[in-house]
């Protein structure tokens, strides 16, 4: 009946002891450990009911939007999920388990989900009904709202008519989601989507109380009074782009007994040195570090490194730069990159070298194993090997009839990418004689625009997973995708991806899995991108706190099972 797709990803927990912290660190450093930590989480949850306390959380950036259908960034998602539940939520391992859904059924053909809702209440006393979901989902695809994540319903969720509505060809009421009655929600899909349930914890799919929303006019989500809560916490103080705001425990939450914390205090701190000092002063319970600070804290049992999900890679402009269209030159570059040195000597935050196009530790297959656990799987196409690099480089020079090359790489103005870029520059220039790499630092918005417009030679960029399936990465390199920055095109590749998303392989998880490896192999063989590293964040988590759940996609931090000993 239903897919038994328990996603048992590694989750990096707020580990109380030295051993657990060390384990988390090594795991993020690239080992394939999948054990441990689960027990810590459950013991944390069990101990939880005893103590209360307010958790003081550091954020790096301000919240951009509290509107679940318009928000796009990790910070906003985290905060929205603190006070809003969707149909499903993540368990400590990141698997989708029921939240507002009491139960669900999937039709024989895999194309219709029927959700039965729990008795839950909004913070204004209204019941959470199936109509709230319908309204929320319709908002997400309404072209008038221009929601950036509307493709979660169309391309990825394959909800009936979503694509047509987004394109403006059909009215929003045609969306394939209906409220059968107050407590029953029916969702129709174009094709079976194996990971559909894991989308349900994504904030774009959260419900919205229509009456309340309309009573707020344009001001929804601009203060604590203009949002409704149905989740574990209630927002009590907030203003747009606030640097500090608070939430308290929601006494009316349907699962209130499970929540141990009395509340959450968020504090935005953009300077990591200030953040660590505040942490040491006891003003914060969890804070992010920059790589330089790891030296200061590496002996501290409270230090831990958690997977952030992002794959950082260099995208060559294959289409517009004739020299980069040369496969041997691209291979020379990818073999000249010493990724170990980048993660160990420069980043030092626990990030792991990446040799695959799909990063490790976020997607697990039908057999429960990590899609990219084996980072040497494609070693013949992607590894660090100066000799091979030199060999390919000579071939490229012969083929192109040139002795020297000069490229410009565009880089984000942030701290970490700039550091990485400087090392990449040095590595390429020393390993490949006659190769010059110039760096152009740009604000992120412009870097993205340059990539999408094709006005670049090389670009250092990143991609975070939207859902727990390798397709969130592999889908990028099909012909014509706006994130296929190099405008690379390969008919075989496109065919495999089409098979996996809308073709026959939709209903064959194992076959689909294998096909995706084939696709990944093509990407690496053709050196379409040069993977660099999977990002990890170095964090300090107070030893009084247990059970903070970290996830690489959608909701980065979840506090429902968190406890704090005062």
């Amino acid at each position, binding site marked *: 009946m239903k897919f038994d797709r328990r996603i048992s990803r590694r989750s990096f927990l707020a580990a109380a002891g030295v051993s657990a912290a060390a384990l988390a660190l090594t795991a993020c450093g690239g080992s394939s450990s999948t054990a441990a930590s689960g027990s810590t989480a459950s013991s944390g949850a069990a101990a939880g009911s005893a103590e209360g306390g307010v958790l003081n959380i550091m954020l790096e950036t*301000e*919240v*951009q*939007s509290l*509107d679940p259908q*318009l*928000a*796009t960034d990790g910070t906003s998602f985290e905060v929205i999920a603190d006070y809003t539940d969707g149909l499903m939520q993540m368990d400590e391992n990141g698997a989708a388990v029921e939240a507002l859904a009491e139960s669900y059924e999937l039709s024989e053909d895999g194309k219709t989900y029927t959700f039965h809702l729990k008795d839950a209440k909004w913070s204004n006393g209204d019941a959470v009904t199936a109509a709230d979901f319908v309204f929320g989902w319709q908002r997400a695809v309404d*072209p*008038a709202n*221009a929601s*950036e*994540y*509307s*493709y979660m319903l169309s391309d990825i969720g394959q909800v009936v008519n979503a694509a047509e509505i*987004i*394109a403006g060809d059909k009215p929003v009421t045609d969306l394939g989601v209906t409220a059968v009655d107050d407590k029953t929600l029916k969702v129709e899909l174009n094709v079976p989507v194996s990971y559909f349930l894991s989308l349900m914890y994504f904030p774009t799919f959260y419900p919205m109380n229509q009456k309340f929303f309309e009573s707020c006019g*344009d*001001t929804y989500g*601009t203060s604590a009074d203009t949002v409704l809560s149905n989740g574990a916490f209630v927002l009590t103080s907030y*203003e*747009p*782009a*606030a*640097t*500090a705001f608070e939430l308290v425990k929601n006494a009316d939450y349907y699962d209130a007994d499970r929540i141990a914390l009395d509340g959450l205090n968020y*504090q*935005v*701190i*953009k*300077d990591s*040195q*200030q953040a660590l*000092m*505040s942490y*040491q*002063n006891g*003003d914060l319970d969890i804070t992010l570090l920059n790589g330089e600070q790891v030296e200061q804290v590496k002996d501290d049992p409270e230090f831990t490194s958690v997977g952030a999900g992002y794959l950082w890679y260099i995208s060559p402009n294959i289409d517009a730069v004739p020299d980069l269209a040369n496969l041997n030159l691209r291979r020379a570059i990818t073999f000249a990159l010493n990724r170990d040195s980048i993660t160990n000597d420069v980043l030092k935050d626990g990030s792991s070298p990446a040799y695959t196009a799909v990063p490790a530790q976020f997607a697990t297959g039908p057999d429960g194993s990590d899609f990219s656990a084996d980072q040497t799987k494609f070693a013949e196409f992607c590894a660090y090997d100066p000799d091979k690099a030199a060999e390919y480089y000579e071939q490229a020079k012969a083929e192109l009839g040139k002795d020297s090359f000069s490229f410009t790489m565009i880089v984000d*103005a942030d701290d970490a990418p700039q550091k990485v870029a400087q090392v990449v520059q040095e590595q390429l220039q020393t390993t490949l004689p006659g190769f010059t790499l110039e760096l152009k630092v740009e*604000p*992120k*918005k*412009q870097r*993205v*625009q340059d*990539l*999408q417009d094709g006005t670049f030679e090389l670009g250092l*960029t990143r*991609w975070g997973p*939207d859902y727990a399936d390798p397709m969130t990465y592999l889908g990028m390199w099909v012909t014509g995708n*706006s*994130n296929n920055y190099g405008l690379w095109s390969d008919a075989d590749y496109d065919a495999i991806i089409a098979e996996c998303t809308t073709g026959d392989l939709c209903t064959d998880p194992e076959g689909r899995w294998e096909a995706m490896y084939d696709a990944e192999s093509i990407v690496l063989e053709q050196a379409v991108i040069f993977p660099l590293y999977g990002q990890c964040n170095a964090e300090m988590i107070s030893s009084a706190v247990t059970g903070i759940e970290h996830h690489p996609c959608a909701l980065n931090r979840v506090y429902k099972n968190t406890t704090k000993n005062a």
Partner: protein
Amino acid sequence: MKKYTLKRIITSLFTLLAILLVLFILMQLMPGSPFNDEKLTPEMRASLYAKYGLDQPIYVQFFRYVTNMLRGDFGVSYNISKNTPISQLIQSRLPISIRVGGMAVTLGAVVGLVLGIIAALKRDTIFDTLATIISVIGVSVPSYVIALALSYTFGFKLKWFPMLFSAKDVFGSSVLPSISLSMFTMASIARFTRSEMIEVLDSDYMLLAESKGISGPALIFRHALRNALIPIITVLAPLIVDLMTGSLVVEKIFAIPGVGSLLVTAIQSNDYNVVISLSFIYSAMYIGIMLVVDLLYGIIDPRIRLAKGDD
């Protein structure tokens, strides 16, 4: 005088309008767009442009902005705080910047004046050298280094003041940011006061005053400082605007929800409306203060009024 004032006010308004137009043109020149996430497709970007009217010709946008602004509507933020009315952002953030900046100006001006007067009176002595060194440090050490050093010493080690801005203890948590902000003002004022004071002290009317038997504090404050003050105000005025409109650096380090850091984020995220509105407020304050200083001059010093009357 009345005619001159009116004329100045009207030209100021036109200047402001011109600034607004320049800002609009600058935004057009800005590379990138506010809607630029890896996850956005070109079609969605186009629909977002249409939604906010950014696909219209610039003069239409300009006209719409000006008419809306006259009604107090500055538009909404595109991405740094999605769809939030900018007037709301300004209302909650500008007072904080003004408060911290105001403390910094007061502190900087008072300490700077005292240092400058001492240096001028004790010219070429050890006090003069000391005051010079202090003011040189003030202008040569970047404020973020000062801010972090202060925060480390007085916030982290000694725990005298909070390290981060807090709405619950606005005054206490504004102390360290104000000090770090005031350093530059203090140093500039000190240096300027010193040279102005020296000039005044060497002037003939001071000799006259002295020979008439006026001495001590009365001589310095009533006669010397008063005359030195006019040029000092000219220097101070633009500094006031700079401080009141928030400092990116200090706001970032102390997590102050002010407008300075907002402007930088907005520029980097291509949030046109926020950039234009905040820049406009800056410009309005700048032009406003310049106008006030100009008019004050006329009142204080009739010679200037006469000189200006003919243009």
